């Protein structure tokens, strides 16, 4: 049975310029202990998906569809029930470590706060468990005393504190929304390794959101490619990387300078995806990628393509997917 299952989740935002469709019939499952990578460029809706699962969408958002988590549809829960879930069963790590912590409260207090809120632990016991959590994320005592304030830590160290806060109540699902984008490449490697080790260690499901294909390849067993609020392609990571079917996924890989193993011969240009992401206020009728797709045909335009299962564990939302191996 899946821990988390999204069925046709659709989210529209009321903006001064009229309603904007941010997510359009997003569906996927995540089994307990599994890891799922969600990759896409800015504005594709990956963060919105995470916020929808957490029930932290902005007030102007209207949701349709289902988000089943441990056999409860989160969209039907009231605020009190959601509060009981957040931090306790689903935890989240955010992108900006520099602003994610309260500057006027000590790191010990902020790590222990989840424990005292959900389990009603006393100050002493909560602080003691906080020390263990800090140690577990690589911030050992006495160097990283709980009485330190966030401004005394580096970006990487602060992100470790945020991860410690997320692990406090031993949740079933950890959502990491671009946890390393704001960090240097060396700290990124350490944080990703920490997330992998922690979630594997305690059978915790992981939803890792990133814009970097290589990060998905390295860190998640399954993956999901999003474009303009829809799921373009999904499946087991190795499977998808081997036979990329959606034109956008291939375009993304070809445009990533680091993705290819060897160094491009001098002067050869990166493959580019022409045009721009469609404006959420006036989404095209048919396939959202049609405007930029090299394989577009007449049947792509009238209505959005349904999802087709190419092979067990690999589905694509495209009428003319690529057939063969991914060119390396």
């Amino acid at each position, binding site marked *: 049975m899946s821990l988390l299952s999204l069925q046709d989740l659709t989210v529209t935002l009321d903006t001064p310029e009229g309603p904007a469709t941010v997510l359009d019939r997003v569906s996927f499952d995540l089994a307990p202990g599994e890891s799922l990578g969600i990759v896409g460029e800015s504005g594709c809706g990956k963060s919105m998906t995470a916020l929808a699962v957490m029930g932290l969408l902005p007030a102007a958002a209207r949701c349709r569809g289902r988000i089943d988590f441990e056999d409860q549809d989160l969209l039907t829960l009231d605020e009190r029930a959601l509060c009981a879930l957040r*931090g306790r069963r689903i935890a989240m790590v*955010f992108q900006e470590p520099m602003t*994610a912590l309260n500057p006027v409260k000590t790191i010990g207090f902020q790590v222990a706060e*989840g424990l005292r809120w959900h389990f009603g632990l006393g100050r002493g016991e909560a602080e003691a468990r906080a020390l263990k959590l800090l140690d577990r994320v690589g911030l050992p005592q006495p*160097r990283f005393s709980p009485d330190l304030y966030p401004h005394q830590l580096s970006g990487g160290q602060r992100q470790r504190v945020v991860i410690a806060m997320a692990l406090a109540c031993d949740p079933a699902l950890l959502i990491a929304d671009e946890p390393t984008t704001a960090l240097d490449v060396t700290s990124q490697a350490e944080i990703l390794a920490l997330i992998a080790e922690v979630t594997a260690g305690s059978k915790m499901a992981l939803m890792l959101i990133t814009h970097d294909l290589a990060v998905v390849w390295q860190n998640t067993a399954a993956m999901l490619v999003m474009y303009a609020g829809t799921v373009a392609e999904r499946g087991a990571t190795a499977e998808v990387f081997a036979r990329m079917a959606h034109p956008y996924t291939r375009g993304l890989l070809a445009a990533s300078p680091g993705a290819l193993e060897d160094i491009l011969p001098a002067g050869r240009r990166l493959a580019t995806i022409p045009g721009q992401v469609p404006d959420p206020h006036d989404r095209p009728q048919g396939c959202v990628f049609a405007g930029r797709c090299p394989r577009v045909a007449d049947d792509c335009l009238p209505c959005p393509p349904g999802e087709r299962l190419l092979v067990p564990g690999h589905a694509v939302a495209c009428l003319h997917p690529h057939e063969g191996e991914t060119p390396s």
Partner: protein
Amino acid sequence: MALFLLQRLGTLLITLLVASLLVFLVMEVLPGDPAAIILGVNARADTLAALRAEMGLDRPAWERYLLWLGGLVTGDLGRSYTYGVTVWELVAERIGLSLPLALMAIVLSTVLAIPLGVLAAARRNKAADVGVMGFTQLGIAIPNFWFAILLILLFAVHWQVLPAGGFAGWDAGFWPALKTLLLPAVALALPQAAILARVTRSSVLETLGEDYVRTARAKGLSRRAALWHHAVRNALIPVVTIMGLQFSFLLAGTIIIENVFYLPGLGRLIFQAIAQRDLIVVKDLVILLAASVVVVNFLVDLLYAVLDPRLRGGGHVL
């Protein structure tokens, strides 16, 4: 941390010194001769000269300035021409009214404004918010002396519940004296409360949008818990700064309000002293008020450092 305060102390002293210099110079430039004012226009030249010598007016300006400065430090503020008593006695007698009045106004405005500001921010664009914003718009627009007059019209003239003015004096008992200060305090507090409520509201709105409040919500805290445990604490920092600045507006307000209610306080004293060209009193009072404003702002900086650990220093963990 200590350094932060030393620097602030430094600027405080410099500001006071410059203020005293300016006040002294302004008084020097003043047309008209104090001695002539006291003895009247047709006084004889020699008595004028004698009085001037006695008041030390014949000595060079800088010497008198240093003497005056010395007096300020030792508390010997000199003798008032018009009242015949030492300035210190005058101040001591009047501060018994102005200080409690100012404190009542500050307490009233803070107790009223901060909760209203937080409420308005928490219920943004709902009824409570629109109500608070309406109240603050009016509060800022109404001149405090007109508001005072309206209060008198209502409570003293119409309902005759409170006195229209004058001060019963503390010896007439705590409550009767306090009653006479009630209307002036409310009149003084209104504009301050309106400004403070607006500042609190926008400051809380700002912090509610911060990432760490979203992190608190992601930890499972309810909207209310995240507001009080995380947003309000951070929002207080800019609010405290504004309160420091407001103290100087409050002093200005006392000058007018003490006139509207005929209260013998420092504000009224300084106004009358200026009108009567009583230089000694004017000089001392202006410096006293300026010093109190600067000291209050210094205390606000202290509170700032307490509220915000980033100012308390503490090195980076390498």
